[in-house]
């Protein structure tokens, strides 16, 4: 007999099947035995045991194994947290820049509403512009180009987010007031952002990098025009006027100053009469005394 034939025969060997009655009986037996000695507490204890024994370390007792596992988890969290923190100050071209972007992606995932998402994207653009400004001093052409691309991409993201908000408003999924609030903030932020971009352009020009300076200028103009256009569209479609909060604040400050001046003037006028009468009275009383003394 050949070995292969023998192997085939061995595979074909059958045993009598287990009876259904035995299966049911055994299931009942095991169920009663297992439920008799298990409580919720012991289940929790076992689960906790499994949780703190993530690392299997042979020849080591349970308590020591748990301790090592906890220390490992804490070390991982500390190192991981430190990396994420360090990545926050990374600029395009840095090793940790991808970690920074991943962290942003996680934060983006946890934004709850279109409004908060738009605010978050504005914050990211601030960061990208700050990174670009930082790189403009270093004169690293490759990283600068990457940073400019990052800024351009982010401006595109913001524009898309605004379009999405428009769409949601049209579908009655977003309130006009919410979008209005964002638009008002946006107007100020865009002014700040374009101002920073202009500063960066000046730095690039002084460093002799005219190409990147021109590119940035184009991106800045495009972004600024696009936001203006989107704000105008919003105003036209809703009839709500987006005031520049800065000018509103200035106007408010002016009004306050005017009011204060008016009050001061009034006070001076009224105080003047009081003082005048007082002084007059005093003068009236003193002068004669003085004159009498004299």
């Amino acid at each position, binding site marked *: 007999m050949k070995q292969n034939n023998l192997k085939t025969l061995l595979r074909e060997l059958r045993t009598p099947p*287990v009876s259904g009655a035995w299966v049911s009986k*055994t299931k009942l037996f095991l169920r009663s035995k297992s*439920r008799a000695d298990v409580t919720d507490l012991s*289940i929790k204890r076992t689960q906790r045991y499994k949780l703190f024994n993530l690392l299997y370390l042979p020849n080591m007792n349970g308590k020591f194994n748990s301790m090592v596992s906890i220390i490992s988890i804490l070390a991982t969290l500390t190192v991981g947290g430190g990396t994420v923190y360090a990545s926050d100050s990374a600029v395009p071209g840095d090793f940790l820049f991808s970690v920074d972007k991943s962290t942003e992606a996680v934060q983006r995932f946890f934004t709850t509403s279109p409004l908060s998402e738009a605010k978050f994207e504005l914050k990211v653009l601030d960061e990208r512009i700050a990174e670009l400004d930082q790189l403009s001093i270093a004169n690293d052409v490759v990283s600068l180009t990457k940073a400019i691309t990052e800024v351009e991409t982010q401006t595109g993201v913001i524009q898309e987010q605004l379009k999405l908000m428009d769409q949601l408003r049209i579908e009655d999924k977003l309130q006009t007031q919410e979008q209005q609030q964002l638009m008002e903030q946006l107007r100020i932020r865009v002014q700040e952002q374009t101002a920073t971009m202009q500063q960066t352009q000046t730095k690039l020009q002084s460093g002799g990098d005219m190409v990147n300076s021109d590119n940035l200028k184009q991106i800045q103009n495009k972004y600024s025009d696009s936001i203006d256009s989107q704000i105008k569209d919003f105003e036209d479609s809703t009839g709500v006027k987006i005031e520049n909060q800065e000018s509103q604040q200035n106007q408010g400050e002016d009004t306050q100053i005017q009011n204060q001046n008016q009050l001061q003037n009034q006070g001076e006028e009224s105080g003047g009469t009081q003082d005048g009468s007082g002084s007059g009275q005093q003068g009236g009383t003193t002068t004669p005394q003085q004159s009498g003394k004299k």
Partner: protein
Amino acid sequence: MILRRLVSPNDLEQLFTEFHEKLYKYLYLRCGRHRETAEDMTQQVFYKAWKKREQYCPSKSSVQNWLYAIARNEVVDYYRSSEKKFQQLSEPDESAICTESNEREVLLSQVLSRVELLSPDEKELIILHYIQGLAPRDISRILGITYIATKVRIHRALSKLKQLMEVNHEAK
């Protein structure tokens, strides 16, 4: 889906559903082909698995290997503690295996009887690898020997079984 833990009574029930047939077959062949003994021992294996559940470590071995290790110990304990009982049960329950209605089944019956003539270790390797279909890697973990040693022993056991079959054939 293969269960990787044994914490709650439901886990035990799931394990039983998944593995009882395999373990029953293994125990049936290891314990003199006696149906009731195999059934009792299968039940004991799962009960012992439940009692020792906190000792199970998924990173050390699979649930299947762990259950086979318990079953193997059960067989050893059984033969060690009840020699008398073993003597009584050594007569196999032939009627339960197959009806020798054709040549193929006669051949299968002969193979099974020749497997019984092997030493316990050889018999175990033949059952685990060829009849149960376990990989040498898993068998090496169950038996606590190296992978190479397992492969060599399986090969030797098969050669011996082949010789026994040929002797039988020549005698006829």
